[in-house]
């Protein structure tokens, strides 16, 4: 009896200790490149988007920023698809992608506005990051980067100082409980060097001075489909389901140098919990805390009103006609109608001018005496 009591007590303690204290999850997924030869960055971001949705984060809690010029690109041999694996096994574009910032809206300013919340009041709800102090946020960025900066759409860049300041502004306003920052670019580790706000864990695909390499080209599509680091991260995430107890230490081991050629790095000194206690689903999935409702309040049943409304409801239903579609397009009419006679219009200015010119030239050449033979 004592043993079972102690077992229950320690299990409860362990459960509480593992818990991270968050009540909702958000994800901000950013692909910072455009143009056809950066296909792999879009495929990276969309694959992470699929995993995150599969593990439970709803679209309303995902802010997806993509240039979105791959699926309908004239150079795409398979239109309306974005593949993440050669031999076209997995179409990550699908039917239900909800891109919040597309094409030229993916700018450094919009990204920083989303993070800090300083958005103009007319922005729709799907474009906002409405996180609170109990939100765990996953931020994934991919594209071309350098030592201390990340290139946005070939025209501007974001520096690691700006990113660190943006996270500090988020922290000051308590817009996150814990933050996981993953970056897959060349020299990615330089982007997390300057963070100074608490509760941030960062992963990068390569160290300063190293390049992140792409995984495999597809001969039919003609470009590289994925980056190595994200490819192996996705393989890892395929084995995670919403119940998994896998922790962050396993994610740090993903893609060793032998597979990735670059050395992935991570930073956990700003994070308060030990990474081995942090579940993957704390960031990638959205498991809610639920409680059983044990109490009710007692309401007085007011039968008079209920019955009369019930009768009204029944009467309403009987009176309602069956619904039918309105006549939208009279197809039968269109198919069988005769071609309409067009109304006659007098010739326009151009035709008149042309004929006047021809007649003038004729009479100039051959003389006015021929007039009587014509008219």
């Amino acid at each position, binding site marked *: 009896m004592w043993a079972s009591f102690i077992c229950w007590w320690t299990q409860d303690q362990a459960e509480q200790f593992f*818990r991270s204290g968050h009540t909702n999850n958000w994800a901000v997924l950013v692909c910072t490149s455009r143009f056809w030869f950066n296909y792999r960055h879009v495929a990276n971001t969309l694959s992470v988007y699929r995993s995150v949705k599969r593990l439970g984060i709803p679209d309303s809690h995902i802010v997806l920023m993509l240039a979105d010029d791959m699926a309908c690109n004239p150079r795409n041999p398979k239109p309306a698809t974005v593949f993440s694996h050669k031999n076209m096994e997995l179409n990550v574009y699908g039917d239900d992608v909800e891109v919040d910032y597309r094409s030229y809206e993916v700018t450094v300013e919009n990204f920083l506005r989303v993070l800090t919340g300083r958005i103009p009041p007319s922005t729709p709800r799907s474009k906002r990051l409405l996180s609170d*102090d109990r939100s765990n946020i996953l931020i994934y960025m991919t594209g071309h980067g350098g030592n201390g900066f990340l290139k946005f759409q070939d025209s501007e860049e974001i520096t690691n100082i700006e990113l660190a300041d943006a996270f500090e502004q988020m922290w000051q306003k308590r817009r996150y409980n814990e933050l996981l920052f993953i970056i897959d670019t060349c020299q990615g580790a330089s982007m997390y060097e300057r963070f100074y706000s608490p509760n941030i864990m960062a992963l990068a695909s390569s160290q300063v001075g190293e390049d992140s390499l792409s995984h495999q080209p597809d001969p039919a599509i003609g470009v590289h489909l994925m980056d190595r680091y994200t490819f192996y991260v996705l393989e890892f995430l395929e084995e995670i389901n919403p119940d998994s107890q896998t922790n962050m230490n396993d994610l740090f081991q993903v893609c060793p140098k032998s597979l990735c050629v670059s050395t992935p790095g991570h930073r956990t000194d700003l994070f308060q919990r030990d990474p081995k206690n942090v579940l993957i689903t704390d960031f990638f999935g959205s498991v809610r805390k639920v*409680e059983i*409702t044990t109490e009710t*309040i007692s309401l*007085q*049943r007011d039968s008079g009103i209920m019955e009369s409304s019930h009768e009204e409801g029944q009467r309403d239903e009987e009176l309602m006609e069956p619904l039918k579609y309105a006549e939208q397009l009279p197809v039968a009419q269109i198919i069988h109608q005769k071609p309409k006679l067009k109304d006659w219009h007098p010739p326009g200015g151009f035709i008149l001018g042309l004929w006047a010119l021809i007649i003038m030239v004729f009479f100039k050449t051959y003389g006015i005496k021929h007039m009587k033979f014509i008219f």
Partner: protein
Amino acid sequence: MAAAGAAATDLEVVRGKRAALFFAAVAIVLGLPLWWKTTETYRASLPYSEISELNALQLRLRVPVTVVFTRESVPLDDQEKLPFTVVREREIPLKYKMKIKCRFQKAYRRAFDHEEEALSSGNVQEAEAMLTVPQEQAEGSLTMYVISERSSLLPQDTMSYIGPKRTAVVRGIMHREAFNIIGRRIIQVAQAMSLTEDVLAAALADHLPEDKWSSDKRRPLKSSLGYEITFSLLNPDPKSHSVHWDIEGAVRQYVQPFLNALSAAGNFSVDSQILYYAMLGVNPRFDPTSSSYYLDTHSLPHVINPVESRLGSSAASLYPVLNFLLYVPELAHSPLYIQDKDGAPVATNAFHSPRWGGIMVYNVDSKAYNASELPVRVEVDMVRVMEVFLAQLRLLFGIAQPQVPPKCLLSGPKSEGLMTWELDRLLWARSVENLATATTTLTSLAQLLGKISNIVIKDDVASEVYSAVAAVQKAAEELASGHLASAFVASQEAVMSSERAFFDPSLLHLLYFPDDQKFAIYIPLFLPMAVPILLSLVKIFLETRKSWKNLEKTD
């Protein structure tokens, strides 16, 4: 000729030196300050000192209590001393930077004749009906009636009774220290009806350091200006069940009175929808012993996410949304019960998730399948459903059961489901929470401005900050004088102004201006101009020093 030429070149040299000196003087005296002034980030003045004072603000929460003594409640000589006022102040021990003091101001007086008559009636409910105060009592204030020790108004061993509107009844005592003893009892009852440490701890849960992972503290919704409540009926199997629910009537009759009672706490809007073919994300398991299906506690957290994307809750408004779902299980999985940790089916068949909403499973009565063919018409019993939903709504708002003192009788709830003093407790908690949030926002804005030098503060943002600071101070004053309603309104204004100031889009004005890039911009402009000036200054200085040395030598 040569001498004149030499004199001319000397003059030229002197003029050249003077010109160089004037260039340098203009550049340094006029140019540098002008450049500095025109390139600094515009910051309208902010009341930094007042903002830092807000951190050390002392909140005094005054609860005015009127204590009415009937004739036989206390000894005669004590009765002679009435009326007088006693103040009891206590500091709430919370690890928060703002000190909070709770002040119960008890005004003792004798009972009027109609009150004596009412309090000598048979039972408490009659007495309350007769005691209706002519005008509504102000929010936050309480009235307590002290009856005699042997009075039969309350059941035999009940010492006190808490009524649905801000009144309570306490038994008196015939004792030398009557006032002290009764005073303690009154404080206990008054605390249960207004402020206790756990109410304030729950309100400030986000600002206190985390030492306990208590689920109570993380359940309530954060304070906001308005809320959106959505009732959804999920029918995954329309081929078998044709479900009808009179949601409009139920909202009108049960939900709207509750929300009207809560209207001081924010604007509420209610909508409803019916979703067909919406499944739960989890497959229920079959229990052969009761031949029913069940969902156990571990699978409950995974139920919400697949459904949430179809609810359309994000399109409605910018206010926080509370979703209440009624799920009618499909024929293949009927009846469906929710099991708690011990494996027993839950009586309400419902569960809720903090800051999101609640789900209830409504099982169709098996008798309905006998006679008719599919689809079976199902009329949802809205009373049963609303009882659960309103209970969940209360929990989600943080209206918890109070800590009643021992031997205290709590009256049944009013028809609206909310007692008036529960609203007061909510308003106290919300006011304190709003003040904490506004203070944190203002302080973090001030800290940010110190840390990051690129943030622009325009005039309208500065005026919002000033009005936020003024609103916080006003709210603190109103709390100290016991006007709960105006304090709550002022605290909401403080939160709104401070959030508007912090999240103004113009604060992000200067991007791309890190310090190392400033050098890259200014060097091509200033270097070509500065190098000749500096070099000439150096040359002038060296020549002057040489000429002094020559002068000394000749001397």
